[in-house]
């Protein structure tokens, strides 16, 4: 198992290099330089700026320089926040995003699996149909529609919850962002759970367990839940990517000073190094979490472990 994990980790390195090279090239293929302003600077000053950011060197050398910086956790200086480095910006903003993302993921898994299991056990009942219609709606409606509509309803109209991040403190300000982030994932997970649970409930070992007089709750808990969770587990990779994407929107809507907000601001301000650094950071995060999901999958499913 450890050997397998190490091999997978090594296998991720070429992918990561490819990602870094791709992102780096995209940024450096840009027409014009990052400091092209309306204000014309004297050529000596321009040369000094270019030298300070290594822009005067040939591209392969710039790339090697960037890579060696990366290895030391240095993503270079931000082009817009002149006194801060990209690593500092990511380090200060990420914990909050991580907190929100982890809470959303937990909520999505618990609610999604429960709703899906319930729907599978009461297949074709009225409640099953209601749950599945909700799930279809949840899948179709993007986060940037869900979040503002929830704010309009629960914060502006009913005034139950705060509309923004900065105006309040405590757990209440987490509710709307986390629910907005989690809703589409709840929908996906509920659908996946329902489909695989229905299949598992029809399998022979479940029939055997039932015929031995085990109640429904015990059958689900002891026999059906684990195999039914496998498709849900393999969805965790895409779910993580979706929550990252959603966090960009949610942080923008609620004014949360997380990594997503830095990313959008950086993109609108054309802060090349910041955007490049965050893209590489996100890609690494997603690759590592995908790896973790794969390993978990092997740990839970003995059929894969044996291979």
């Amino acid at each position, binding site marked *: 198992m450890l050997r397998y994990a190490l091999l997978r980790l090594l296998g991720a390195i070429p992918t990561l290099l490819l990602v870094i090279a791709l992102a780096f090239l995209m*940024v450096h293929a840009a027409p014009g330089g990052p400091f092209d302003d309306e204000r014309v600077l004297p050529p000596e000053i321009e040369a000094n700026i270019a030298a300070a950011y290594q822009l005067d060197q040939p591209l392969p050398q710039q790339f090697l320089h960037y890579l060696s910086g990366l290895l030391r956790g240095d993503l270079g200086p931000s082009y817009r926040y002149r006194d801060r480095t990209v690593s500092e910006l990511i380090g200060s903003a990420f914990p909050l995003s991580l907190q929100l993302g982890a809470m959303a993921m937990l909520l999505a898994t618990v609610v999604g699996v429960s709703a899906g299991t319930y729907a599978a056990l009461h297949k074709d009942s009225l409640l099953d149909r209601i749950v599945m219609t909700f799930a279809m709606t949840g899948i179709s409606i993007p986060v940037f529609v869900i979040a503002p509509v929830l704010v309009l309803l629960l914060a502006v109209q009913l005034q139950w919850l705060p509309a923004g991040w900065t105006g309040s403190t405590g757990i209440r300000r987490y509710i709307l962002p986390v629910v907005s982030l989690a809703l589409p994932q709840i929908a996906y997970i509920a659908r996946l759970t329902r489909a695989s649970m229905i299949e598992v409930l029809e399998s022979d070992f479940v029939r055997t367990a039932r015929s031995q007089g085990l109640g429904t709750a015990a059958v689900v808990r002891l026999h059906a839940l684990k195999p039914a969770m496998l498709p849900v587990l393999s969805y965790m990779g895409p779910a993580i990517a979706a929550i990252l994407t959603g966090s960009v929107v949610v942080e923008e809507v609620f004014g949360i000073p997380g990594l997503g907000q830095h990313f959008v601001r950086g993109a609108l301000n054309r802060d*090349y190094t910041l955007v490049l650094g965050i893209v590489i950071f996100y890609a690494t995060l997603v690759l590592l979490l995908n790896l973790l999901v794969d390993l978990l999958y092997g740990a839970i499913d003995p059929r894969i472990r044996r291979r």
Partner: protein
Amino acid sequence: MNVAGSKTVRVSAWLLGGIVLLAFVGPWLSPHDYLQTDFEQILQPPALANAHVFGTDDLGRDLFVRTMHGVQITVLVAVVASIVSLVIGVLYGAVAGLAGGRIDAVMMRFVDTLYALPFIFFVILLMVVFERNFLLIFVAIGAVNWLDMARIVRGQTLSLREREFVQAAQLTGVSFGKIITRHIAPNLLGIVIVYVTLTIPQAILVESFLSFLGLGIQEPQTSLGALVDGGVNQMEGAAWMLLIPAAMLALILLCFNFLGDAFRDLFDARQSR
């Protein structure tokens, strides 16, 4: 297994057709123009008087015409982006499937690698680096969505490769490129067309996501994502500015997803047979 027979499919198809028709005909019926500002009529709620059926925005522009214009742009971007992804995906998948062996293995490994990436962030990187124009949006979204298409096409090509007419062509020395254009591509048409209806909602999602963040369609042009963004800023006094474009976007995506679900069921049934 009759897709057209299902009620949800019929309702979704009619609704989509109706929305698209309204989007292109509606602006002709309205006396207003999507660019025309009217500072006497700022933030008017929906009313039949003045022919502002969806109300007006913070610059006094008619929201009905703007919403319809947004639907036009959103649908246009989605269709063109889907065609871009179709061309890339079909070419890539057909080449991998027909070449087979090590080339196929390497090409598909590359696709697997790209699958794991949060692609939307690369699209944003593209939008940052280059000028935000229409063409780039098409290409960027198409470049995101070709992976599924490549996988499907490769699978189909693998089975086509074993068929007599392809083997006959190979034996008589027809070139690789010609086999793809003459013999493989035409036989992929059915599945590819169905698959495009599945990629359109994904393209809509990416486009409106970018426009919502202010990185996609730029003023004075508009799209549903940009309209939702505008609505967010005015939601406290003018809820209609948020709710109308949001509902329109949700409705379009819901219809596409119902259609896509039905198509997927159909294909699963075919493949298991």
